[in-house]
Structure formats: C-alpha cells, structure tokens
C-alpha cells in the first residue's frame, strides 16, 4: 500500500495495520501518542549524514581498575553509578566511582565497565572526557586528570597532565588507600 497525503491529514480512528509501501505526507504531521519506528529516520535531508538509526539510554557499572594488576576495592555503592545515552553511533556517558578503601594494584588507573566498545579508528572526534577527582595524589607531577577511551576498548585510561610535557602517569597507588576517594567524569565516544 502506498499513497500521498496532501493538505488534509485524515484522522485514523483505529490502528492502520498490514500497511506496506511508502506514504508521502505533504504537510505537518502531529502524532499525539508514541511513534515506533522499526528502521531509522532522516532529519533535515535524505542523505546518509541525516540518518538517525538508534537511540537508547540506560545505566552501566563503573569499576576501578589498573593496567597491570587490578586493585581490591571497597565501593561506596550509594554514589558509584553511571549512565549512558546512545544517539546514532555516538555514546554519551557519565559516571562516578567512589571508594572507601583500596589495596594493591599496579599500573595506570582505569575505569572499566563501559556500556559499549569504542570504534577502532584514530579519529579523535569523541574519545576524551573530563575528570573531576577527590583525594588522589599527583605523584607524577601532574596537575589535572584527563580520560581517554582507546580504540576497541571498553575502559577509560586516566592520565594526569602537566605543563611542558605530554603528560604523566596516574597510577593506582595515587588513589587513596583509605577514606573517601572518587572520580567523576563525562564524555563521549563513537561505536
């Protein structure tokens, strides 16, 4: 079934079922309830750059890891949480990892548990994030933290930045072993 709806939009008093083929609507369309689209939608044009094929939101569980050996961690589960919104091929995410104790571990700090796997390319349009820490020590002479989601990875590498250098390692022993410590962050990456 196909057709063209011009200036007059008919009122469907019941569900339209068993419809196939294309409809072209030549005027505004108002939907007063939910719309379910099995495929994608084109916004502002009909090119592939206008195509939106997916939207989803949900939660994920962030974990404190390290690149060589993972630490043993006691989480403050009240505040350790994370969310995501996937729009097309881009995942927007935020998280907080809050601990009350950390023992052991070696290597640079990582946050694990990302809800999707980052795409495998070197295009930097969306693999960095901002980090806000509490009760960490910058033993590597850094002054702030940044996060990077590497290609084909499902975790965030955290590094410290400093003046006049490419950066410094932020290692797991820089994370407080007792008392409250946390990082909050938000960013995006492509899938």
């Amino acid at each position, binding site marked *: 079934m196909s057709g063209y709806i011009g200036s007059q939009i008919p009122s469907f008093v019941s569900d339209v079922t068993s419809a196939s083929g294309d409809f072209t609507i030549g005027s505004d369309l108002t939907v007063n309830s939910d719309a379910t689209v099995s495929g994608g939608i084109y916004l502002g044009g009909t090119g592939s750059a206008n195509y939106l094929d997916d939207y989803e939101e*949900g939660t994920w569980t962030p974990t404190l890891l390290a690149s060589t050996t993972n630490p043993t961690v006691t989480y403050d589960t009240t505040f350790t949480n994370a969310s995501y919104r996937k729009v097309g091929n881009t995942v927007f995410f935020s998280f907080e990892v809050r601990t009350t104790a950390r023992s052991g571990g070696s290597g640079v700090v990582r946050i694990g*548990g990302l809800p999707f*796997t980052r795409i495998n390319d070197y295009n930097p349009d969306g693999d960095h994030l901002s980090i806000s820490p509490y009760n960490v020590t910058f033993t590597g002479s850094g002054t702030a933290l940044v996060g990077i989601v590497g290609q084909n*990875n*499902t975790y965030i590498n955290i590094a410290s930045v400093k003046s006049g250098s490419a950066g410094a390692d932020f290692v797991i022993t820089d994370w407080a072993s007792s008392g409250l410590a946390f990082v909050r962050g938000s960013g995006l990456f492509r899938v």
Partner: protein
Amino acid sequence: MALTEETVQDKIEIVGDFKHVQVRTATIIKRDGVEISRTYHRHVVAPDATTTGESTEVQAVCAAVHTQAVKDAYAAHLAAQEV
C-alpha cells in the same frame, strides 16, 4: 492490580575486530501482565575478561567467539596502545 518485575538479557551482540560481546539487560515492570516500564543496563565482555558470573548464554557466546587467536590478537592490540 499486580506489579511484577523481570530481568532479561534481551540483546547479546558480537562487535568489533576482537569480538567484544555486548550484553543489554532489560528490567521490565508489568502491571497485570502489561509492560509499563523498561530500563536498560549494559556491560561488555572483552576477550581477556573472565566469564565467571555471566549467564550461561553469554558464556556460551564468549566460548564460541573468544578463541585463542582472538585473545592473542586483542592482547597484542592492547600492548600496542600508547596508554
């Protein structure tokens, strides 16, 4: 009126060069059998991850796709990364 909650893994995907297994868990609330709420929680099982604690279905998928060759290639990929 009866409210029920059920949790299902409604999407298990194999993605990328190293066969990451992406798992979406849906929590569904129903009133008298009619769905009124659905929320999602996601996690990913990488080739080097332990599958202990995963569902039987996810473990089976991981066992099938995370071959030793895939694990070795992923380990080499990680070692080659700058950070």
